Every structure is written in structure tokens, then in C-alpha cells.
């Protein structure tokens, strides 16, 4: 456990002193801010049934596609390319501690970035504050559900990033691989489901279980289903476990 804390501190420190982290953060906040403004602008033009926050969280996949690869592609691939992974493995540290510390550092930063988006509704509410607006902008159930979904689905997305990084010594390859896997998980599954004809029908139940948008739907309504939590936790453990095995065997 001592090793893990030490490695985690080292990873967090490395994240917070790297300029690329701040560039990623700025790009993320600019994009999310822009999306939020567009949603609000659309709300001023026509009436909507749902809350702006719901639409905001429905577009969670846009930042995930570039934030997750950017945050994770360096983690193992860079250490392997530099040879520092080898020196790390000659200390009494295990591959599990290395993988989990890198995962947790990237995950904490991912959550921090998402937490900052809470500033958008707060700022809007502060500027044009009215009680009717407050209810719609800061609906606690939607906000809480949305952020819990982001936090829980983030586990799987970040673990996919770490997994991709553990496979190769090239950051570029790790980034592209991570993007492709995320694309399949997030957009591929619903696409297959909507296109399902004939022999795909028997897969429908399974695909439904994999569909992230379905999970989000439940969470945004404030329904916290343990099935989804088990889904994300079990897959995260599986993916990280494979990463540990790869790291151990490919020093």
C-alpha cells in the first residue's frame, strides 16, 4: 500500500506539472462551455421537454473521445519507450500497483475536469438568476445522476486508455487504439443495435446491456441501477487485470 501511495503521488505530480495536462484541460473546458452555450441558445429559440443539463450529459461522448486518449496514452507507453518501466520493475513494486496508480491518477484528473463543468450552470444562474431558472438549471436529480454516470462510466473509459497504453511503446498508436476502442464501445454498440436485422436480433438483449446511452438515460432520470454499476466496475477490473498481465509479461 505504501508503494501504491508513493506511485500515485508521483503520477499526480507528473500530471500536474506537465503542460499537456493544462492544454487538455483548457480544450475540454472550451469545448464543453461551447456545447453548453449552444444548448442554452437552442432553449431560448424553442420549447423543450427536457432540462438543458440532460442534453448536456447526452453529449458526454464528444469530450471522452479525445480527453481519455490524451490523458492516458502517455502512461505506460512512454515509460516503456524511455525504459523507466524496467527500472521501476526492479524495485519491490508490483505491476498491479503500477497500473492502478496510473489509472487512479488519470481517473481523478478526469473527474476533476468534469467537476469543473459544474461551473457552467452555476455561472449562468449567477448572471441571470431567477427562481424559475434555478429550478431548471440546477435540478439536483439530473445533475447528480449525470455526474455519477460520468464518474462511473469514466472508470471503464480510463481503464481502456491504460490498457491501450500498456500494449505499445508508441504514444500515437496507444492514442489511436484507445480512440477506436472507445468509439466501438460508445457509438458502435447503439449503431449495431439500430441496424440489427435478422441474425442480430438474438444479440439485442446483450447489446442493450452494453449500451452506454441506455445507462445514461437511467442515471439522468435519477435512477441509480446497481446493474450499471456492476457492469462498469466488472469491466474496469477485467480491462485493468489484462493490462497488469501485459505489463508483467512485456517489460
Amino acid at each position: 500500500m505504501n508503494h501504491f501511495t508513493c506511485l500515485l503521488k508521483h503520477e499526480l505530480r507528473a500530471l500536474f506539472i506537465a503542460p499537456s495536462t493544462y492544454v487538455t484541460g483548457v480544450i475540454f473546458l472550451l469545448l464543453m462551455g461551447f456545447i453548453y452555450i449552444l444548448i442554452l441558445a437552442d432553449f431560448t429559440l424553442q420549447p423543450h421537454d427536457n432540462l438543458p443539463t440532460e442534453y448536456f450529459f447526452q453529449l458526454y461522448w464528444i469530450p471522452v473521445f479525445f480527453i481519455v486518449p490524451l490523458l492516458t496514452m502517455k502512461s505506460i507507453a512512454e515509460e516503456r519507450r524511455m525504459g523507466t518501466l524496467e527500472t521501476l520493475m526492479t524495485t519491490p513494486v508490483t505491476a498491479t500497483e503500477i497500473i492502478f496508480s496510473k489509472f487512479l491518477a488519470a481517473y481523478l484528473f478526469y473527474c476533476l475536469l468534469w467537476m469543473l463543468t459544474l461551473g457552467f450552470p452555476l455561472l449562468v444562474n449567477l448572471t441571470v438568476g431567477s427562481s424559475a431558472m434555478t429550478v431548471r438549471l440546477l435540478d439536483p436529480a439530473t445533475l447528480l445522476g449525470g455526474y455519477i454516470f460520468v464518474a462511473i462510466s469514466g472508470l471503464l473509459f480510463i481503464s481502456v486508455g491504460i490498457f491501450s497504453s500498456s500494449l505499445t511503446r508508441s504514444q500515437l498508436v496507444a492514442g489511436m487504439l484507445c480512440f477506436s476502442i472507445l468509439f466501438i464501445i460508445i457509438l458502435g454498440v447503439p449503431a449495431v443495435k439500430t441496424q440489427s436485422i435478422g441474425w442480430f436480433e438474438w444479440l439485442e438483449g446483450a447489446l442493450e446491456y452494453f449500451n452506454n446511452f441506455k445507462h445514461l438515460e437511467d442515471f439522468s432520470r435519477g435512477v441509480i441501477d446497481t446493474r450499471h454499476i456492476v457492469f462498469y466496475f466488472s469491466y474496469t477490473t477485467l480491462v485493468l487485470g489484462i493490462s497488469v498481465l501485459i505489463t508483467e509479461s512485456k517489460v
Partner: protein
Amino acid sequence: MLGQEHSIEVNNLTKYYGPVMAIHEVSFNVEKGEIVGFLGPNGAGKSTTMRILCGLITAKSGSAKICGIPIASNPDEIKRRIGYMAENNPLPEDMRVVEYLYYRGRLKEIPRKRLKDRVEETLELCDLNRTARRKVIANLSKGYRQRVGIADAILSEPEVIIMDEPTIGLDPHQVLMIRDLIKNLRGKMTVIISSHILSEVELCCDRVIIINQGHIVACGTSESLRNEFINNTTYTLNLKGKTEALDSLLREIDPDLVISSSPSDINEDYYDLELTTPHTHNLSEKILTRLYEHPQFRVRELRRKVPNLENIFLAATRRSWDEDIPLSINKVDSGKKNNQETGVVE
């Protein structure tokens, strides 16, 4: 473990990368407090052996123990007992020297109370305390980076230190400093160093192991290897006089002493000649006395060539090439003699 326990004990270690043999039935022992040089041409299997000793990779067969503990079954315990400096000395670019050593110290489980003292001691020992202490590793010169690598290897005062080419790319001053540093470790820690700089190994190592094409071709002190591999003694003579008369004179000194080269420059009064004998005892005095008795010869210089480690290395590796060791698994009788002892690797 009964009786004398070796610090490093390697028995019949074999490793293949796919069909290519990296090392084949490598066996050697290193005693406590000994400094051993590990030599070999590129691709001979030095790094593979060192990586197996560190528990980074596993061997196909054979056993390797550090301080009597089998590496394959206790890799975690081994990692507490070794200090490893990898080839090319990889270091994180964005850390300061002192931060890096604290970080490594914590990972190497140095007790919290002792960590500060130990880091300071190591910084002092590796001469990093004054200029490099607070510098970012990316901005350090090659020599300082090597020192940081060595500081990391000795930081936790391990029983065994394994260094893969620690003096590569250093200037003579830095080589001298690192040589002194390694000499200081004699008796306290067991050190195994691989290097291409043969004079370096000869100066600071107690014993030399030469590996070629995955086989140990020589093992022993420089002196014993000299006797084993270099079977003749060469003298260089700078003299004036007729060569024809010299031949019979030399036979009187030693019947096997012959002139092995033609005069270097016959137009000059004085010329160089090389004399060779298969015997190793020193004939310098006899040669000088005999030549002094004959006034037609005027001697200006006589040198007895002592073969250095480079000659031994070349002779040992050449001999193993001549023996034509098979490189591929197909050619090797893979079933033979895979002695599976306690602590067998994989």
C-alpha cells in the same frame, strides 16, 4: 542453505527469444563482496543474463539464486536485495535529482527515518551534492545522469548491485570517479558490471566473466585468463646489428625464442624486432646480458609485452567462434541436460 553461500549463483541458465538462442547453459558464481566484470561482444547475452538476475524476465531452464534465494520463485524478495542500473540508464526527465532519489528510496522501502540520511550520503558519494542536487534530470550532462543512475543503484545499500554498462559515454575524469566509486563498494556489496571498456574492467574488477554467443567462454582473474588464453610472450627489441647473427644467439637463450617480425626499417641504424616464445617466464634479463656480451649488437630498448584484457577478450571470443556454437534452437539438442534444481526458472 548449507555451507558457503554464494552471493550470485547461476546454474545452466538457458533463454531463447523465439527460435533464437540468447544464452545457453550459462553457469557462474559470484562471492560476497566481489566485483565481477561481465564482458562480451554485442548480442552475446550479457543484458539477457542481467535481466534474468533482476527478475525482469524468466529463463527457459536452469536456476539462478541471489543470496541463496531462487529468483524465479521469489522475484519480490530478490528485488529488495538488488540495485540495478539498466543499459542506457533510463531516468524520468521531468524530476529533480534529489526528488528522484527520495522517490526511489520510498519505492525501495528505505525506512522513513533513514531515508533523508541515506539520500544525502548517496548524493555526497556520487558527487551530486553541490551542482546537480536541485537540477532537473533532463538538463543534466551525460556524466551526471550516469551518476544519478549509480546513486539510484546503491541507494538502498543492496547486497548485490547489477550495472549494465555504467561507464558508457563518459569522459576520462568521470570514468576515474566512477571507478573509485565502484572500488569503494568492494567488500561491502557484491557488484557485477558489464562493460565494453576493457581496461576499465581490468582496473576495478576482481574477476572477469567473458560470454560469447550465449556461452561462458572464460571465467577467472585477469592473471589466470592470461595464462589460459595467451600462450606466448612477445618481446620488442630496438637494436643495431645484423639480424642473421642474432638468430643463433637467441636460440642459446631459449631454444623456442624466435624472431617473429622482419626489421621495422632497415635503412635506419636502429630497428625494431619482435621476438616470440611460447614460455611465459621473463627472459628480459637473459636477453640483455647475452646481447651485451656481443659488441656487434647495440641495444637501445627491450620491452616485454604483457597481454591486456583486450588480448584475452579477443582470444577467448575468437576461440568460441572457431568452435562454431550453434545459434538456432533447431541446431541445439534442446532436450539435453536441462538440470532442474530447486528454484528452477519456469
